[in-house]
């Protein structure tokens, strides 16, 4: 087995070799600009882009014309949120989202707040779900957009898209979903789920980095957006800029593979994830699985290890590439805002690891990862004053700490 073992597929995925093969000619002989209408170089590139558009549309149950290429999910989220806000300002100035969304949704929303828009930040319950009655009550006739992610990137909790979509449709507000983590993992259908806007990123589904798309509904209702990038009027005027043909071809092939293999791949991933989780919990019964145990991404688990600190744990399991639920590693020294939003105590929010499995994960890798984590947690507990206090029967919540 090669180490480090990569278990951070929710951060990014390697390109599938089939994706690479499909992309290669577009670096060389097939180099045309898809917007060149006067010669064969352009026509070939355009045909490849349109094929990819159809492949991505198929993953979403959308029409190819509803796909707008972007540089990734962050751009797609910005375009959806700011584009809707600017376009529909005369209709209303209210938007709704949740506390556990990705920064690429939260930050555009915060930006809009500085521009005179009002944003409702819905809380979530212990498993990461918003209360649909609370959502319904928050929607007013001034509400122009609800943005709720398909699957949470840290804990994997799935929002009930069809129910949220139906609610938004009934209330006459647009519904955007960031489906970056969900694509290829759970079935997406913009019709059945009443989705008006949907963001995707290629590199989370075995495509290349630097390319993504925004699905923009064309009818019932026709969604209009104010472009955030002005120029040559590409992508129906919604996103100017010469298309990243090579990347787009890769994203198309990545979407095709997801569509074709999801039925086999998802049960395999779920079995591996469950194996990992059970092997850890069997040895560390007080570890806590975060998120919704049922309505959850099949390839991800987020586990808190009480009495040990997340950053030191990750440092200890250096044979594993995993990420900390704690954002300490990004130098902010703050525990994850997602875990905090769930109402987790600090000692749990500071002590979590996200494992995300993928297409190339094997059973021996999963067993190795589980055992290494258990060993390291046990080693760090021997070093932990909190663990010692708990063994002595001390209630940590009653201790008077010197907060610094």
């Amino acid at each position, binding site marked *: 087995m090669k180490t480090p073992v990569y278990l951070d597929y929710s951060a990014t995925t390697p390109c599938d070799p089939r994706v690479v093969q499909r992309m290669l000619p577009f670096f060389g002989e097939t180099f045309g600009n898809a917007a060149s209408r006067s010669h064969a170089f352009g026509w070939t590139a355009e045909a490849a882009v349109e094929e990819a558009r159809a492949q991505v549309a198929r993953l979403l149950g959308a029409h190819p014309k509803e796909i707008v290429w972007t540089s990734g999910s962050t751009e797609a989220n910005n375009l959806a949120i700011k584009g809707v806000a600017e376009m529909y300002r005369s209709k209303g100035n209210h938007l709704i989202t949740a506390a556990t969304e990705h920064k690429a949704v939260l930050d555009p929303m915060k930006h809009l707040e500085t521009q005179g828009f009002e944003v409702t930040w819905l809380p979530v319950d212990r498993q990461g779900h918003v209360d649909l009655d609370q959502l319904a009550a928050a929607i007013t006739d001034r509400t122009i957009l609800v943005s709720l992610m398909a699957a949470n990137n840290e804990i994997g909790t799935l929002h009930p898209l069809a129910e949220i979509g139906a609610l938004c449709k009934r209330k006459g507000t647009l519904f955007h979903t960031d489906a970056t983590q969900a694509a290829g993992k759970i079935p997406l259908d913009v019709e059945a789920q009443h989705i008006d806007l949907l963001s995707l990123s290629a590199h989370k589904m075995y495509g290349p980095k630097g390319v993504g798309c925004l699905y923009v509904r064309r009818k019932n209702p026709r969604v209009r957006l104010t472009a955030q990038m002005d120029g040559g009027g590409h992508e129906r005027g919604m996103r100017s800029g010469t298309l990243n043909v090579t990347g787009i071809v890769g994203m198309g092939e990545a979407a095709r593979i997801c569509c074709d293999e999801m039925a086999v791949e998802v049960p395999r991933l779920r079995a591996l994830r469950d194996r990992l989780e059970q092997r850890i919990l069997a040895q560390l019964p007080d570890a806590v699985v975060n998120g919704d145990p049922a309505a959850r991404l099949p390839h991800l688990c987020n586990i808190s290890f009480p009495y040990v600190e997340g950053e*030191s744990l990750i440092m200890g399991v250096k044979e594993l590439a995993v990420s900390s639920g704690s954002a300490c590693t990004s130098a902010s020294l703050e525990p994850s805002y997602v875990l905090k939003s769930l109402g987790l105590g600090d000692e749990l929010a500071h002590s979590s690891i996200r494992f995300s499995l993928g297409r190339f994960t094997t059973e021996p890798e999963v067993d190795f990862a589980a055992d290494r984590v258990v060993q390291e947690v046990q080693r760090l507990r021997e070093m932990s004053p909190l663990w010692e206090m708990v063994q002595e029967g001390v209630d940590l919540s009653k201790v008077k700490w*010197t907060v610094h």
Partner: protein
Amino acid sequence: MAYSDKVLDHYQNPRNVGSLDKNDPNVGTGVVGAPECGDVMKLQIKVGDDGRIVDAKFKTYGCGSAIASSSLATEWLKGTSVDAAAQIKNTQIVEELSLPPVKIHCSVLAEDAIKAAIEDWRQKRAARTAETGARS
């Protein structure tokens, strides 16, 4: 984040992990930090009759730099006098471990833990002296 070799060494081979009997009159215990801040250090010293620290132990909940800072502190404490120990500054720990700016608080915590342990020992000693004085 890249850790210095010394931090890695202390993290992987921490010196003096463990506990001394906190009820021993010659043992001073300092517990600083809070779980919500992501680090808690417990540092203990055992002081001989000559005012020298004969043993030091630690347990730390925290990042690798916090573990390394407390491990280093126990190394420095052993064999030194209580008065010299009280002079240890966090900046010396920062320098020895090449801690980056975001990890300076780990060294501050270690300094606080040393001072808290010494204070605990001094209070115990003062209480004992008062007791002996009252009896004679």
